[in-house]
């Protein structure tokens, strides 16, 4: 299903980041996507279940949280999961496109949220990005 992806700060992201970006708390609060309940239903994903989010820049599995997003839009807190999906193109401004991106969501039964170690391996070029 096609959606618009927004990323940004949340209180939980800020608090858990100060606990440490390698902490389990950070993983729990940041490797998540907020979906409108009807969109989640449409792709067969429930609260806390795995959802795969893909853009032309990459793909990650995160935990679905049912939240107050508009239908057709999803929100992922800023962090390495969101940024596996964001655009590095700045159109000459220096500012990458971190909001309003075209994305696809799909249920990911049997999969777990992409671990941080996997993202680090992707940065190092040790594994592919999808």
């Amino acid at each position: 299903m096609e959606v618009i992806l927004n990323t940004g700060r949340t209180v939980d992201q800020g608090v858990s980041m100060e606990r440490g970006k390698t902490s389990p708390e950070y993983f729990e609060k940041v490797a998540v996507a907020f979906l409108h309940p009807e969109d989640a239903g449409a792709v067969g994903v429930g609260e806390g279940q795995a959802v795969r989010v893909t853009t032309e820049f990459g793909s990650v599995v995160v935990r679905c949280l049912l939240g107050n997003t508009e239908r057709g839009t999803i929100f992922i807190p800023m962090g390495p999961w969101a940024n596996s999906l964001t655009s590095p193109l700045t159109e000459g401004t220096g500012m990458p496109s971190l909001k309003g991106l075209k994305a696809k969501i799909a249920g990911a039964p049997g999969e777990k949220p992409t671990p941080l170690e996997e993202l680090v391996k992707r940065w190092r070029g040790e594994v592919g990005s999808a």
Partner: protein
Amino acid sequence: MALLKGVVCPFCGCLCDDLEVEVQDGKILSTRNACPVSRSKFLSHAEDRARPTVGGREVGMEEAVEEAARILREADFPLIYGLSSTESDAQRLAVRLAELTGASLDNTSSTCHGPTVLAAQECGAVKCTLGEVKNRADLVVFWGCNPAEAHIRHPVRYSLTPAGMYRQGKKERFSVHVDVRETRTSKMVNQFIKVEEGKDYELLSALRAALRGYEVKEAAGVPGEKVKELAERMKGCKFGIIFFGMGLTMSKGKNLNIDAALRLVRDLNDYTKFLIMPMRGHFNVSGANEVLTWLTGYPFAVNFSRGYPVYNPGEFSAVDLLYRGECDAALILASDPAAHFPARSVRHLASIPTIVIDPKVSLTTKLARVVIPSAIAGIECDGTAYRMDGVPLRLKKIVESPYLPDREILGRIIERVGA
């Protein structure tokens, strides 16, 4: 036990200066007046600290500093990036180091309010301090920002509920939230206006048209009457302010969105007093812009490879340099691009010798060739930081630290690079 008062919070651009911190035997026991993020920063300051390493091997500070200097000396086109979560003396020395090594120098504003700076360079900005907002504002508009999550005490200390000289609390201020989605901020204000995704420019332009008496049927999903009502409200207030955030700078249009907002505010000053302020994120990102501007003439994305500063966002900004794979070494100071840059740009950072100066283990330290741990500015060392409105405040040292301040580490690297 000591109770330290008037402590400035080194987390976000609000720089709340009314914190109280309880300290016993060099340990922080509790905080008062701090928001949850700030409390977490103070109480967790000793956790998850970085260790000095070279190539993943733990070394002494001297060896780490020596290796950092060697990398920068040998690099042809290094990048120095970050600066926004440290104090201004360290920022000053980062400029010195960039000049010495012919580096590109960029701060985190390129990925937050860089577009704001670009727009202000085009058409100027009508500005004021947060004190003036607290004392005088009777109309407060939050546009594309979410203070309830990102600048938690902003509404309480400066913009919505505080008792100011001429405005007593929330009932004497009308507040509006304009955004693509309802958030906690929408619940704190009098009116929420939903703008369609990526259409802020359209709504800002429609407001400018409505101000001039043109009829607007609909703009960005907002019915014409609502546009007219907001335009009239803006015109009719005594002291209005727009606070704006990443909802404008990061979405389609970027600096052009800000340009439209700045011009709307300029137009409004034909009728009343109206101001605009970016919600700055990192506690001293304003300082990074200030310091770079006094020393180089430019606020971010500066390159020294010709021996003098050249400014070109899009060319010398960190995300672009990394995405294009142009820099051959990097020094990251007080920021974590691996966590906050698009992964496509992070990859290059993993492939070049990267030096990280940071108090904590970060995701960038995981990719770094050299890690140099430092004291946390505003908790373990003093310094100066600039609030989001450009007011400089003095950060305090609350507890002793075994780590050196960023400014001393940079000083040592500079000595060795110059030698």
